[in-house]
């Protein structure tokens, strides 16, 4: 569709673009990314024939761009500039009708049914049909942008060039526009080339992205290949962090603010958390948010949290949507559910065990409640017909004063689990169904919380210093908790 071969451009003495080469296929949504002054807009102006390259060639449908007549070109390529001077006194319809200019003859233009149809469709597509008789100047910024989009569509182009199309739009309008563009690239085989200033929007929607830096190409590729931390850090001169989008397989970039972290000094974990316990719940409150990796009912996955709640529920607690009920419960008790980790247990909360441990570089606190009414031997779990849901679960919360990587979080979880299994074994907990040693219960829950300050831990496996501490404290806490549980059972009997 469009081939760009080694083009360069300069304004007076300053080289704005150098050696740009790429091609765009029909039906592609192609993004141009780069910081201010990287030459994005100049590149788009070269593609829209507004400027001509100093060297190199641009081919559209195999023909050199400069050999196109203005009208011939406008029938193939439509442009939506970043800002359009607003002109007073035109209605929406009149403004959109101008899009048909290239399709009409010069001397005796005749307004055909085809023209009428194109305008009507364009107006309907941008949802401005109802406002077609309104003055363009009476519309909001976002609506105006849609008027100009409709005008570009009325040109019936094969290629649509957009300069930061989502400028002046709120987030819902941005998504709507991009969803529409994406659909058109699929349905109508429209080719879209757009400048983006939002890396995440670009990587969400673009088939391929061209990354520019100081007039030079960093690369052209699928967003997931191009959007990596080092490249972006270099290009945008800010700290960035790449993550995965939670629902679509696309990268997500977050920027790291340069805020002085207060309370940087390493302290004791006991100074950073306060524990409050009664019959109804154990509440652990932290001074500053902890980064938590958990399987908790509320706040699962990675989350920053300041409150950790282990709630006591009756043995016959049954609820279809336990998560929603738990959220309501937390809200009712004045917790911010976006900053709270919520677990449930039927175990008496006074039997909870707290193990504190201090090492040279860090300290940690482990809180465990344990009940084993549902004890399961994982190696024999497949033999069980159905899961019998009785009361009894092991809830573990581990608070660490230190900085953990994602890998360290995952390893901490493994380490803690292994320690728990060993504790169950040494306490001779048996799976009642299979009569073999149990490895856990069917509803165990864990949360690893770290201050993300102080000592840096890349790993937390079983032979690292942090891993050893986790293993030991979890083992001890779980054993103590199990002993209390057994004691309680004996008392009942």
């Amino acid at each position, binding site marked *: 569709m469009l081939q760009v071969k080694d083009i360069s451009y300069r304004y007076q003495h300053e080289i704005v673009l150098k050696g740009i080469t790429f091609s765009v296929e029909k039906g592609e949504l192609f993004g141009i990314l780069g910081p201010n002054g990287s030459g994005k807009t100049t590149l788009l102006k070269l593609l829209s024939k*507004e400027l001509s390259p100093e060297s190199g060639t641009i081919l559209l449908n195999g023909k050199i761009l400069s050999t196109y007549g*203005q*009208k011939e070109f406008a029938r193939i390529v439509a442009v939506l500039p970043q800002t*359009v*001077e607003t002109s007073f006194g035109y209605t929406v319809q009149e403004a959109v009708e101008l899009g048909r200019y*290239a399709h009409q003859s010069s001397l005796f233009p005749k307004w055909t049914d085809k023209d009428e149809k194109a305008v009507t469709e364009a107006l309907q597509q941008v949802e401005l049909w109802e406002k077609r008789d309104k003055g363009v100047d009476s519309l909001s910024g976002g609506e105006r942008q849609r008027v100009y989009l409709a005008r570009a569509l009325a040109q019936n182009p094969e290629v649509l060039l957009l300069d930061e199309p989502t400028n002046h739009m709120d987030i819902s309008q941005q998504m709507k526009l991009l969803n529409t563009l994406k659909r058109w690239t699929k349905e109508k085989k429209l080719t879209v080339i757009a400048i983006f200033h939002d890396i995440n929007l670009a990587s969400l929607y673009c088939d391929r992205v061209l990354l520019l830096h100081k007039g030079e190409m960093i690369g052209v590729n699928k967003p997931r290949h191009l959007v990596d931390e080092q490249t972006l850090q270099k290009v945008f001169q800010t700290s960035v962090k790449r993550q995965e989008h939670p629902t679509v397989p696309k990268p997500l970039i977050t920027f790291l603010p340069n805020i002085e972290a207060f309370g940087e000094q390493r302290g004791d974990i006991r100074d950073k958390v306060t524990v409050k316990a009664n019959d109804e719940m154990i509440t652990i409150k932290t001074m500053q948010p902890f980064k938590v990796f958990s399987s908790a009912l509320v706040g699962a996955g990675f989350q920053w949290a300041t409150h950790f709640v282990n709630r006591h529920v009756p043995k016959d607690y049954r609820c279809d949507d336990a998560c929603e009920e738990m959220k309501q419960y937390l809200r009712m008790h004045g917790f911010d559910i976006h900053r709270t980790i919520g677990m449930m247990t039927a175990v008496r909360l006074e039997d909870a065990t707290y193990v504190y441990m201090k090492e040279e570089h860090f300290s940690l606190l482990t809180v465990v409640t344990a009940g084993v009414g549902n004890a399961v031997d994982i190696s024999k779990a497949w033999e069980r017909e159905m899961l019998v849901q009785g009361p009894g679960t092991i809830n573990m919360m581990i608070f660490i004063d230190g900085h953990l990587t994602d890998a360290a979080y995952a390893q901490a979880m493994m380490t803690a689990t292994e320690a728990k299994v060993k504790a169950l074994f040494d306490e001779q907990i048996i799976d009642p169904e299979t009569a073999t040693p149990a490895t856990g219960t069917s509803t165990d829950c864990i949360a690893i919380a770290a201050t993300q300050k102080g000592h840096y831990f890349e790993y937390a496996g079983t032979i690292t210093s942090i891993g050893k501490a986790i293993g030991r404290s979890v083992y001890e806490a779980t054993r103590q908790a199990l002993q209390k549980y057994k004691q309680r059972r004996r008392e009942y009997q």
Partner: protein
Amino acid sequence: MQKSFTQKFLNNSTVILYVIAFFIACFAILLGISIGSLSIPFSSIMEIFLHTLFGVPLDKEIPPNIVQVVMSIRLPRVVLAFLVGASLALAGAAFQGLLKNALADPYTLGVSSGASVGAVFVLFFGIQIPFIGKFTLPAVSIITGLCTLFLVLAFARAVERKMSIETIILTGIIFSAFFSSLISLMIALTGEELRQIISWLLGSVAMRSWDYTLMILPFFIIGSLLLLLNSRELNAFAFGETVAANLGVDVLRRKLMILIGASLLTGAAVAVSGTIGFVGLVVPHITRLVGGANHRRLLPLSLLYGGSFLVLADLLARTIISPRELPIGVITSLIGAPAFALLYFNRMKRKTG
């Protein structure tokens, strides 16, 4: 169904706008012929027209000298006023559309002054270019007008690349002032042509025979056609030159056509009537309020309203302190300058507020 209804309604409203403008123009022309030191009723004017055009026998009550007054004195004057007004309004509308500047008109851009210098120059030296004879004056004013326009635009561009409204107007004023001094210089040096130059300069459509009408007519037709054929391009230009190019407009060629068309109209109008200010500013503006900014309507309507406006202004000029006459430029400036001030005020208010 609903669509075809609105379509019809829009078309109807356009037709109504044209019909109203046409009737206003006819009424202004008849009024212009009718009123004067000798009052002539509309019915007599119609009869005289029918008599002259189709040889319909004249009522005995209309004396031959009335026929003379209508056909040789008042009609040429009114027609000339109409053509001059139409030219200036059309040129103003085109300048405003092309430069996206509601304050642009032949007068504020300095085109009128430039054309005047050319005209005064011709009068001062009594030049007659061979072959074009009596067309020397309009030809020279058109060319000097066009040159002035390019000078003004080039200078404004050199001052500020984006050519803001204020810069263009200010540049126009600088050039106008310079040309006025050139004219004053020629007046100071002149002897016998003084009266001719002064009376021409004041701007008037009085005592002009059919010759003048015939002189302006070809320029008027070519200029108007150039502009009317570019009305869609003017609509595109209203959204900026880049947008126009993106829509498929051959920017350079179309821009040149529009500038030449508008300069033809201005130059020719100045050549036959002197500098008459503000018509090109006020008329398109009011027309825009009535019929919207779409140049396909704006241009023809401006033509009709501009003609009517100047016919009525001329009527006022010759009746207000009768039997003496005011120069017509005085009337248009008395109306136009405050209107200009108001427009400028509103514009800046909108910009800053």
